[in-house]
């Protein structure tokens, strides 16, 4: 057993209202710099939709992630030989049109325009060229199903559905959408790290945060291809790649990452997970429908004395183990088995988990009334507007049973709480039993979902920065010396 600690995240999609506050918080903090205008380390997508960059899930096009090769795995788009062969011309890179051309407005036109009959307008100008542009796309261009015949229909996940199911999604009375906020998954088996020819990307030993060393990065951009989630971005001004750093300077100071702190729907949870790195080799090449379960098996119970013993042996601080015991992510993912990784079939073992949304059920016209009532609550899961098949394509590599299990639990908690507070429905016991929950567990799920305080949702392990700084001989670093960017300017700037 090789116990490692990983700061892990859970997004509760049932609570997401799609307000993009997380994206704005991240943008203002990290990517409002020159060359980073087009980057959205945090973005919120409407599903079904093409996402950002457009159709990023189509790995036949972008060649991200890993593919199974017998009892092992291989990078789809880079790797030793392929990477070397294409090192001067990586043929699978997204272009700026796949993202969007970032723009701002010439606001001074509003004040400087000569007097005329028309209202002055602020003309959009490109943040790359500085010239006037006609805006053709944006980072959330298909927000709330905007332009859905064009965008939502091109969602790569729809390919898993048959023609009838696809058509159903776009009928007015069945129209449906959900939100999918995305940041870097800080994967256990990151393909961006594996594809970097310069060795500039690394996964931090102490908390598993994946970072790019800006001094070592040579801008080969193999990581941009390597990451199947397209969460590594190339900065055209510095000539280096950048990605979400899970606000590590905030985490090290005991602060909550900006996107999570600002989350209006309080959908975000953060905490430490302990996992067994020895199992990794056996897990990554399993069949697709076993991946989620196997990844869950890698996560260890931080209360198990054997795990604690092994963790201490690996140098994991007691305070981190203690923090892991309180981790809300552990409860959702391991204890309640409600957290699912996004696209596990890319085999990167993402450590950002999602609780899938419980969507409105399908109604029917009944004597001029739009009727959504139904006799048996659980049957409604299969009558949900967004087919379970679609959610399975997102979160379990096609394993519908697993998604259904999570939805059942959520539904059971709902029924249970309704019978507790309103008392107008029967069968709460039945529902809980069928979902495999006890009253106590259902109460816990409800509490952590709906009533959780800031301290419940974010259990940040102490970073013991003082020890790390002392080890590097940097005790005398003063505030303001550290931050994103370059301490030594790169030559090309």
């Amino acid at each position, binding site marked *: 057993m090789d116990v490692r600690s990983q700061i892990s995240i859970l997004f509760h999609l049932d609570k997401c209202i799609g307000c993009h506050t997380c994206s704005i918080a991240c943008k203002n903090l990290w990517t409002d710099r020159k060359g980073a205008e087009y980057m959205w380390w945090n973005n919120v997508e409407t599903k079904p939709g093409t996402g950002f960059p457009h159709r990023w899930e189509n790995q036949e096009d972008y060649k991200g992630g890993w593919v199974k090769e017998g009892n092992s795995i291989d990078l789809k788009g880079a790797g030793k030989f392929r990477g070397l062969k294409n090192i001067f011309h990586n043929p699978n890179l*997204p272009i700026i*049109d796949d993202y969007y051309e970032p723009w701002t407005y010439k606001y001074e036109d509003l004040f400087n325009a000569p007097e005329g009959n028309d209202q002055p307008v602020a003309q959009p100008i490109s943040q790359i060229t500085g010239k006037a542009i006609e805006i053709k796309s944006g980072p959330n261009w298909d927000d709330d199903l905007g332009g859905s015949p064009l965008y939502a229909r*091109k969602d790569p996940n729809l390919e898993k559905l048959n023609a009838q199911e696809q058509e159903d999604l776009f009928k007015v009375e069945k129209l449906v959408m959900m939100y999918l906020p995305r940041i870097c998954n800080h994967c256990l088996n990151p393909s961006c790290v594996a594809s970097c020819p310069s060795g500039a990307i690394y996964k931090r030993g102490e908390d598993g945060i994946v970072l790019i060393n800006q001094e070592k990065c040579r801008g080969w951009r193999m990581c941009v291809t390597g990451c199947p989630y397209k969460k590594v971005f190339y900065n055209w001004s510095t000539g280096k790649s950048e990605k979400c750093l899970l606000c590590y300077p905030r985490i090290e100071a005991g602060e909550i990452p900006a996107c999570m702190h600002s989350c209006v729907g309080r959908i975000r949870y953060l905490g430490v997970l302990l996992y067994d790195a020895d199992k990794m080799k056996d897990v990554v090449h399993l069949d697709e429908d076993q991946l989620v379960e196997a990844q869950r098996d890698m996560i260890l119970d931080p209360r198990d004395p054997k795990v604690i013993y092994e963790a201490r042996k690996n140098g994991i601080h007691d305070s981190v183990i203690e923090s892991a015991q309180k981790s809300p992510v552990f409860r959702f993912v391991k204890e309640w088995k409600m957290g699912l990784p996004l696209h596990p079939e890319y085999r990167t073992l993402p450590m950002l988990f999602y609780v899938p949304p419980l969507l409105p059920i399908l109604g029917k016209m009944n004597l001029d009334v739009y009727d959504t009532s139904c006799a048996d609550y659980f049957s409604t899961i299969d009558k949900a507007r967004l087919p379970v098949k679609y959610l399975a394509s997102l979160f379990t590599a096609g394993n519908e049973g697993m998604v259904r299990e999570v939805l059942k639990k959520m539904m059971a908690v709902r029924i249970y709480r309704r019978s507790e507070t309103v008392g107008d429905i029967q069968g709460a016991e039945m529902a809980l039993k069928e979902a495999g929950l006890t009253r106590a567990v259902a109460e816990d799920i409800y509490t952590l979902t709906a009533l959780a305080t800031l301290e419940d949702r974010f259990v940040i392990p102490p970073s013991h920065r003082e020890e790390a700084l002392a080890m590097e001989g940097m005790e005398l670093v003063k505030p303001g010396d550290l931050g994103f960017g370059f301490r030594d300017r790169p030559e090309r700037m």
Partner: protein
Amino acid sequence: MASTVASSWSFAFDAAETFEKKCSSCHSIGGGDDVGPDLKGVTERRDSKWLIRFIQESQTIIQSGDPVAVELFNKFRQKKMPDNDLAEAEVLQLLEFIKAGGAPTKTSENKSALKATPNDVELGKNLFSGSMRLSKGGPSCVSCHTAGQLQYLGGGSLGPDLTQAYSNYNDTGLSKVLTKITFPTMAEIYAAKPLTNDEVFQIKAFLYSVDKTGPVTAGYQKKFLFLGILGLFVGLGVIDFSWRSRRRKSSRPTAGGKS
């Protein structure tokens, strides 16, 4: 060039050595006209001021239209005399040396190219084109010169085309020029790696055979351009083929076409 600069700065200027090094391959003193005119009595024929300038920068004088200079230039098949980086005092010493009759003129020991066998011509061609190395290690002629119909793309174009070198320099002139190479660009290169007598004879033989065949319009420059453009497109084609499965367009859905 460094050696000429050095010599002009040296205090002990040796007129005899300078004449041997810089003049003797084209001029004689009392040995008759060669590539350039016989210099016997030149100090009486010409004004010494004119001589100094001509030795220093003959082409400038010719271009300025000086009648004597132009006449001489035409008489000696328009062979350009290299400019000499010599101070006025040094030129005067040199003129003194010429006036005194100079050193006894060495007669060329090299056989005439007319006696060459086809085998000599072949050897000469090999030496010229570099398929055989010069025995002292000097670079092959082909690196800078071309002559006649030489390979597909001819030789180098840095130095002049030597197709008609034989009739321009005549046999003895060519022997001298090749035995003791004084052209400014070549002098330094061949100073330590001269040609042997046999090599001079063979190259001469080759140049003679080329000259006899007459001028050719090989169009090397056009061929070179054509090959360059062809190579460019072949190269682009190979690149296009190697990366044929690259992403060609954005995956942004557009109203016009399918993506």
